[in-house]
């Protein structure tokens, strides 16, 4: 019998076997089979033929692979990835039934989870980046026979709040944010997330809304104001980054929170008085402070700032408690209850309230009122529910599938958290208290109400788009200055590039919101819009890098224009100098002529001013960027959300804080199409010196096509050759080696079409003075109508934007974000329903969200 015949017979045998098994297969059920009778058989039948013998494929022999243990866990993980993805066994070598494949990968996951439980655990199958390991066609296509789906739910769990949620929650205690202004949507408003600052750092600022004057420039301001960075950590470099099981609060963070809590409480009580060195700094007339302020250079010191007397912070029961003599039970209870609800978003129970009152009383006993209250109240900041959000369904009754529906505060806060970072609005709070948050219809009512009201800010939706697109990382990509200069960006002040990237993130945020406002074909619009929310620096970043001939022509033109301008300026100065000389002579002849004296002074001033202007113009001409053609944006004025003033507004080395003003412009046709061609996304998917075609391709493969890419094998030295005179495409030839290409064909041909932009995001037609090659190909997308070559990124995006598969993959990612877990096959009906809701509504995000948030997965929890 030949090898092929043997494989065929074995495959048929296993096929028969699997059909028998398939009748009872339910995804997620433990595959209670032993290694020898199940896994070993699978390996022998489908794998050993290639991965055995003296020269195994990929130098990986599975011949001696035994039951899962700590030592071989990495190999089993790799086997799991290959089998789950359908990469192995290769279809042309050995056919595996769907059910058999699912059972085998479930078995590996179960075994790895058990084996690694006390050794760091096995969590790869929970990683959102591996969510696509579940075949897309199984979720959205017809189910193979023999699979019985179970009613879906999510596990009972606790979520740690994200750094953004935490800072926003704390910000509510000390800063009042403006109410939503329908005339100026986009401006930072109450309920929006606290944005990162000019350097990309997430910080809580104290009292910056009351600063009237400070000494020094930009950095002096940034040093003198009080701010504290986010304490909770988030170590994922994006993608969907907030599954409940990712994070805890370590003891370092807990103790830091305690320290910051004391600062916050002091500010709640005393406002800016808690920040200053002298009470005279609180004044509406900074001149009064000037008279008494300490001598010497105050720049960067707390004493450098004056604050207005206007009370801008919220005055709360904590303030009331401290402003009154003594400590009454009533006041103390009110302060504890207020703080508890502000931090946990739900009222304290009587027991909880009493516990914290006791702690505060004990602290007061030890330290006296002032210090005791501050220390005692800070303990509430460490309450479990101030840092974690529970979905534990402790009180509900399980249905016949063992699922318990969330209700009351848990359900209300789950709905609130799906959309918001601040506590439930009055209506939702009332509904929870009155027992009207217990049914699917209750949830639908509240979700639809909140979605319809623009004044109820919903930063979680925007967060999803950041997580999905990853367009907000550009400012964190460290750029090599020389390489950045070559892109056409002026790097005289390299920090301006990073600032421009944070501005670009804010602009893209706003563009996403504008598309959500329309709520039609949301994904398609995001992928194909010609609109650009533009900040002045975008004229450069959305511009195009000129090729050599264009640069030379422009340089000649610019030189001629500069020479002509210089001549004019010289003539003008000569004329003014002559006038001064004449007046001077006239005055020498008649020293008593007062009018001549005055005229001479005026002429001298005019001459000095003109010389200054000419010198500035000359400097400007010499720094004019002759290597790019700037984009010119015009359109209606709009606003983007930026940080509170985190940096001074003047100074010799900075533009100061970020500014919200933008225009809504239109991108050059043929050069840009949708978010993926905007600098914010392109730079986010670049590296220090070049584009990152692999990363871009991976993004397309995973987030639009729903494909999976296995982890890079540890044996691979993932480096491109260092050849400065070769293009990235040329250097990427190494990924075409057989061993690499299996995976890289999924990414590289999808990323290389973006070579029409350089790594700062500028459009280009040439690279290294040769026409740039922007071709690529969609290979094995899962939708045969998509497969085939593409001319460039725009061509590819147009194809993808029309695809039903792409929309379905988008829905899968929305599912992961809002459910906090990867989809399983049991979720297939829900996903199909959610997709229908999106499609039938003409691509409405609101419809998609309503469908997801009223689904069983969102509403029901299963314990263990």
């Amino acid at each position, binding site marked *: 019998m030949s090898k092929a015949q043997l494989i065929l017979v074995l495959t048929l045998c296993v096929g028969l076997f699997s059909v028998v098994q398939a009748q009872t297969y339910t995804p997620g059920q433990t595959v209670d089979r032993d290694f020898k009778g199940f896994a070993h058989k699978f390996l022998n039948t489908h794998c050993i033929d290639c991965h055995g013998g003296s020269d195994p494929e990929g130098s990986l022999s599975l011949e001696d692979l035994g039951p899962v243990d700590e030592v071989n866990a990495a190999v089993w993980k790799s086997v799991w990835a290959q089998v789950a993805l359908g990469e192995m066994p290769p279809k042309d070598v050995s056919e595996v039934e769907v059910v058999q494949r699912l059972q085998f990968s479930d078995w590996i996951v179960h075994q790895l989870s058990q084996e690694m439980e006390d050794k760091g655990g096995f969590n790869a199958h929970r990683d959102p980046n591996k969510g696509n390991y579940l075949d897309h066609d199984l979720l959205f296509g017809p189910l193979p026979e023999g699979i019985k789906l179970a009613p879906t739910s999510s596990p009972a769990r606790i979520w740690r709040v994200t750094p953004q949620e935490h800072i926003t929650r704390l910000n509510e205690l000390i800063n009042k944010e403006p109410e939503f202004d329908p005339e100026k949507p986009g401006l930072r408003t109450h309920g929006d997330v606290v944005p990162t600052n000019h350097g990309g750092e997430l910080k809580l600022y104290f009292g910056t809304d009351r600063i009237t004057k400070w000494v020094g420039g930009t950095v002096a301001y940034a040093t003198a104001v009080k701010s504290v960075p986010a304490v909770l950590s988030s170590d994922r470099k994006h993608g969907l980054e907030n599954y409940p099981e990712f994070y805890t609060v370590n003891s370092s963070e807990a103790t830091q929170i305690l*320290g910051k809590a004391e600062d916050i409480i002091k500010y709640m009580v005393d406002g800016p008085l808690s920040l200053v060195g002298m009470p005279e700094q609180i004044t509406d007339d900074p001149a009064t402070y000037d008279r008494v302020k300490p001598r010497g250079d105050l720049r960067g010191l707390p004493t450098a700032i004056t604050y207005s007397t206007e009370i801008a912070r919220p005055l709360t029961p904590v303030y009331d408690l401290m402003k009154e003599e003594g400590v009454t039970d009533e006041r103390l209870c009110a302060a504890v209850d207020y703080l508890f609800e502000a931090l946990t978003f739900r009222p304290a129970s009587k027991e909880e309230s009493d516990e914290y009152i006791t702690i505060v009383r004990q602290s007061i006993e030890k330290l006296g009122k002032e210090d005791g209250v501050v220390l005692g109240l800070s303990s509430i900041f460490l309450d479990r529910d101030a840092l974690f959000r529970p979905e534990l369904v402790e009180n509900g009754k399980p249905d016949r599938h063992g699922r318990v529906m969330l209700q009351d505060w848990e359900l209300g806060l789950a709905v609130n958290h799906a959309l918001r970072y601040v506590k439930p609005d009055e209506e939702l709070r009332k509904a929870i208290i009155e027992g009207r948050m217990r049914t699917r219809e209750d949830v639908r009512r509240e979700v639809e109400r909140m979605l319809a009201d623009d004044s109820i800010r919903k930063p979680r939706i925007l967060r999803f788009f950041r997580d999905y697109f990853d367009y907000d990382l550009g400012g964190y990509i460290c750029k090599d200055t020389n390489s950045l200069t070559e892109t056409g960006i002026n790097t005289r002040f390299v920090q301006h590039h990073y600032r421009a990237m944070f501005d670009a993130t804010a602009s893209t945020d706003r563009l996403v919101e504008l598309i959500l406002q329309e709520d039609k074909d949301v994904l398609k619009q995001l992928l194909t819009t010609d609109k650009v929310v533009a900040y002045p620096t975008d004229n450069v970043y959305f511009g195009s890098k000129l090729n050599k001939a264009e640069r030379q022509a422009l340089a000649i033109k610019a030189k001629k224009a500069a020479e002509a301008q210089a001549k004019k300026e010289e003539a003008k100065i000569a004329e003014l100098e002559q006038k001064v000389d004449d007046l001077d002579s006239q005055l020498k002849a008649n020293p008593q002529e007062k009018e001549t004296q005055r005229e001479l002074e005026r002429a001298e001033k005019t001459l000095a001013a003109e010389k200054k202007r000419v010198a500035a113009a000359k400097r400007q001409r010499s720094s004019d960027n002759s290597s790019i053609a700037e984009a010119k944006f015009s359109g209606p004025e709009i606003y983007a959300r930026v940080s509170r003033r985190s940096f001074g507004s003047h100074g010799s080395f900075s533009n100061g804080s970020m500014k919200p003003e933008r225009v809504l412009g239109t991108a050059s046709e043929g050069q840009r199409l949708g978010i993926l061609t905007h600098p914010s996304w392109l730079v986010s998917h670049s590296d220090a010196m070049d584009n990152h075609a692999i990363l871009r391709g991976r993004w397309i493969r995973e987030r639009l096509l729903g494909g999976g890419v296995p982890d890079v094998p540890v044996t691979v030295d993932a480096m491109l050759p260092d050849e400065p005179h070769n293009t990235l495409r040329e250097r990427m030839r190494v990924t075409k080696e057989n061993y690499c290409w299996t995976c890289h064909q999924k990414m590289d041909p999808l990323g290389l079409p973006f070579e029409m932009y350089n790594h700062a995001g500028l459009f280009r037609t040439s690279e290294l003075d040769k026409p740039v090659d922007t071709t690529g190909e969609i290979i094995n997308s899962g939708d045969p109508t998509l497969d085939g070559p593409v001319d460039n990124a725009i061509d590819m995006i147009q194809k993808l934007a029309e695809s039903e598969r792409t929309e379905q993959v988008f829905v899968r990612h929305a599912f992961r974000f809002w459910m906090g877990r990867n989809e399983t096959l049991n979720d297939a009906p829900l996903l199909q329903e959610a997709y229908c809701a999106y499609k039938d509504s003409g691509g409405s995000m609101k419809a998609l969200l309503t469908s997801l948030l009223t689904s069983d997965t969102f509403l029901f929890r299963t314990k263990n």
Partner: protein
Amino acid sequence: MLNRRKMLQGVAAGAGAAFGLSLNPQRLLASSTGQSTPKRIIFFMQNQGFDPQTCIPEGMKQSGSLAKAKLPEPISALEPYKERLHIINGLHGMHTSPSHSAFFGALGGYRGSDGVPPSAPTIDYELSKILPQTLLPHLCIGMDSLGNMKSKPTIATLSASGAGQPIFMHSNPNHLYQMLYGGISSGDIRLQFEARSNLLDQVEQLAAAEGKSLSKLDHQRYGQYVQGFKDVNGLRDRLNTVADHLRKFAPKVDERYTHPEFETDWHDVNLELGISALTSGITNTLTIASGRGEIFGSWKGLGVEKQGHDLGHMGQPDNPIWIKIRQYNSRMLVRIMESLESVPEGSGTMMDHTLIVYTSNNADKQHTNGANWPVMLLGNLDGAFKTGCFTQLDGKRPINSLYTALLRAAGKNVDRFNMNEKMARKFDSGTGPLKEVLT
């Protein structure tokens, strides 16, 4: 996933609530009876740059011995210690964007700037993890103007335990004393300590009670949160058990703590506390930030009336102000060495197993591109580092290569620190540790 040691490192670094894996009081003893020799590293980061002319002996252009050289005036206090000194000129930190300050990039060896969060752990934190363990693995202290130290007693600008995970430095000596020696303190510090201890005990109980109904997976995760409090509270008890030992090293609280005349009073007592944390064996890594990693700072106690940003705009060589500041730094370095020398350890003294890294968080001057980043090393960390010499490098190896050398000497066999191969092609002419400093 967090492991226990990582978690412990975190709490100690962040809050200074000190505890560690080996909560055996014996480990606190200066003369360790354990098998691994205690080692310690101190980073002293002066802000505004470190001009090479203020440390390289006049006329010294080539690498060579310092034996016959005379140290320049700003560091003349180190003259008696020159056989322990290694002056290094010609490392670079261009990739750290040090204009005004490289912030986390100075100890991280990556891009840092105002407002830019850390993108990876810094070298001091990494070392604290691998040096023989102490109760408090990492302590950071910061020195600034009195106003800033009072209004912002903890800030995070230089050290980090990971991407987006800054480590706070302590500037108010009263808080720092409470943290280190609250159990043996008296007066107001004692009251604060007791109140805080009581609060943390109760928070632990509340946290533990709230975790009872969690699933297995959540229980493990939430358990780490509860465990953090248990460790903090447990450590306090353990420190109490070695109170007699700590008393030998704890500084005396005096007027300088409660009524400082100048900021330098607090600088001095913070330094004393830092030294005592080393000599008592509480910590193995101390980061001292003079100017707190920013571009301001104040030294009125030295008779320097100017403060803040202007100090950076001045040239440092032959500048009376900068001579005073650098001399003050040098005297602090001497105090550290003398203190460590006075404590027997193994067959020698603590100083024998110590290395001090003195440099700036901003290369050589305030407005710099980081092409030159002078460093002074003092001590040899158990014979691992060359001493008594000056080394002139060619400006092609980054500060990361020095940090790699520190990691190697501490026992971690790595070729690079926080620099991938792609960046290394651009910014590092070599591979592995800076061999010029290692014996």
